[in-house]
């Protein structure tokens, strides 16, 4: 059983920006860690805080209750830029489990899936309808149904694409390293023939 085995419901934070890069998600000065813990404190550090460290109250993730909202909604090309896996680590540490965006940076999408963070890409019209709903009614609950590849709000629903293997790994709790380790015989055969 993982959290992805069946549909779950939660509220969302709307961050209606395009091309949110991983330098914003977690600025480079926080990359000096040698573990993956505690990065949520620095999530969007420079967008969340003034230079003197006081929080900017109008930043969406600083609104009361933001930490209990498991879904982040963002625009196009979320997570572009650096390959730092600290970005999904910071997001999950903050309490985010799914990101709904128009599209994602390729490396970010891959990193997110390896950390139980679901990237949900939906098309522009669906995105606009959903963003409008969230603007008017921020307490709206969204249902994430990975087995059915669906995102639902009330009677509205949209289907999102996801790599079948990534979906299988999330639902079954399979980790890719374990899967790769089982390929050892094929890897040895390859090395004998080609290397």
């Amino acid at each position: 059983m993982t959290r992805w085995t069946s549909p779950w419901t939660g509220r969302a934070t709307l961050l209606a920006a395009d091309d949110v890069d991983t330098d914003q998600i977690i600025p480079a000065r926080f990359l000096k860690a040698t573990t993956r813990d505690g990065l949520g404190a620095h999530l969007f550090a420079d967008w969340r805080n003034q230079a003197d460290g006081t929080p900017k109250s109008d930043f969406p993730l600083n609104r009361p209750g933001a930490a209990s909202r498991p879904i982040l909604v963002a625009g196009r090309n979320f997570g572009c830029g650096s390959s730092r896996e600290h970005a999904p680590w910071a997001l999950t540490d903050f309490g985010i489990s799914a990101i709904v965006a128009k599209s994602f940076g390729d490396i970010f999408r891959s990193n997110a899936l390896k950390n139980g963070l679901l990237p949900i890409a939906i098309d522009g019209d669906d995105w606009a309808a959903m963003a409008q709903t969230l603007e008017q009614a921020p307490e709206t609950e969204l249902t994430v149904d990975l087995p059915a590849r669906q995102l639902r709000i009330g009677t509205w629903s949209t289907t999102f694409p996801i790599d079948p293997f990534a979906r299988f790994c999330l639902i079954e709790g399979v980790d890719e390293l374990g899967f790769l380790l089982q390929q050892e015989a094929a890897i040895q055969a390859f090395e004998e023939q080609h290397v």
Partner: protein
Amino acid sequence: MPVDPTPNHPRTLVEKIWDRHIVVPERDDTPAVLYVDLHLIHEVTSPQAFAALAARGLRVRSPDRTIATADHSIPTLPGTHAGTLPIADSAARAQVDRLTTNCREYGIRLYGQGHGQQGIVHVIGPEQGFTQPGMTIVCGDSHTSTHGALGALAFGIGTSEVSHVLATQCLLQRKPRFMEVRIEGALPPGIAAKDVILAVIAQVGVAGGAGHVFEYRGRAVEALTVDQRLTLCNMSIEAGARAGLVAPDDTTFEYLSGRAEAPKGAAWDTALARWRTLPSDDGARWDRSVTIDAARLAPMITYGTTPAMAMPIDWAIPEPDQLPNHADRQAVSQALRYMALQPGRPLIGHPVDVVFVGSCTNSRIDDLRDAARLVRGRSVANGVRMLVVPGSQEVKRAAEAEGLHHTFIGAGAEWREPGCSMCIAMNGDMLEPGQYAVSTSNRNFEGRQGRGSRTFLASPATAAAAAVTGRVTDPRTLLEGRFS
């Protein structure tokens, strides 16, 4: 089962490399298992990967295919490399120490501080001859695309994948789509590879290459040196593409011949014969194609906070109201607010505080020569700080053998030790909030060069022109008679 290595349809360069590295073919429900020839690691994205290995009691499967360097958070102040580690910041020091310990424990070659060939990971790979045509190369770093300049399929991965490669020498991957980026014609004098790639990114957009691997082709690409091709491939990721390649040719082979890690003797001849079969076949199919006319290119500079917000240096800063689509209007107006720039005004003449010549994009000998050509006989303008940070110890020695350091130091610039430095601002080299830099690095994101930093990305010549005038300046106006 290894797949048939010579399918009979015409293939692209990338497809040939891909096919040859398939350990287990891709199926609908599982990605391919792809073999990795060379794995580069550095201090920032590897510690958690080694920890993941240790937690499962695993070893590094092929230490001989793994190369490490310390580059991101090490100091670049003169005299800091030789002896002990004067890293002021204890977290950074712990990270570099961890890399050293991990390399010792697992038998990985480390080009660390004090090593005579130390440098930025994407500079030393090609320079030492580790990077070779036809290879698959990965690194926990998005600018791994750089190595594509020698005809390798090279791409950035996350730290989980770093642990996969350490443990199995393989990755789970879906076959990418192929995009042809044709640069036709000849580049005008004074136009560099950096101008070409900024023009490509401006045209394709920051997400335009998503899901694709670029192959740069055309006469202008063939005419580039390997150093310049490295600049071109380096920034593929800024257009959303994970990798970018140039087909290997005589320029590539000449560059590689005699490098420390390149094949020698009979092995060289065998390798060469194989490398010559790599270029894309006539009739190979591209999923997408874009063409750029080299003859029309001007020096490029960014005005905003993504690398695609770039324009010819003599254009006016765009007016968001006049942009056709709503998302761009919003993004550009927000960027101009951050940059504190006036829409519709020229960027030429805008004052500059700092000039940074360095990074895996532009810190090789060709780049330093381009910058020096412009600085020679001039001085860094009053109130401007210019940092010149060679990409590796070897580049530094080559530059000093030509006396380039005298040119820079004599003009009032700082001549530094190799490292990432102000590209990522992790080592103390950074802008103060609100300062403007003309930088030869690859990212102008908000805060990339220090909190509140404002970055104009440009070529080494454009950066040097800003250093000596104190303002954004078209380098062509200072280059009369200096092209040879």
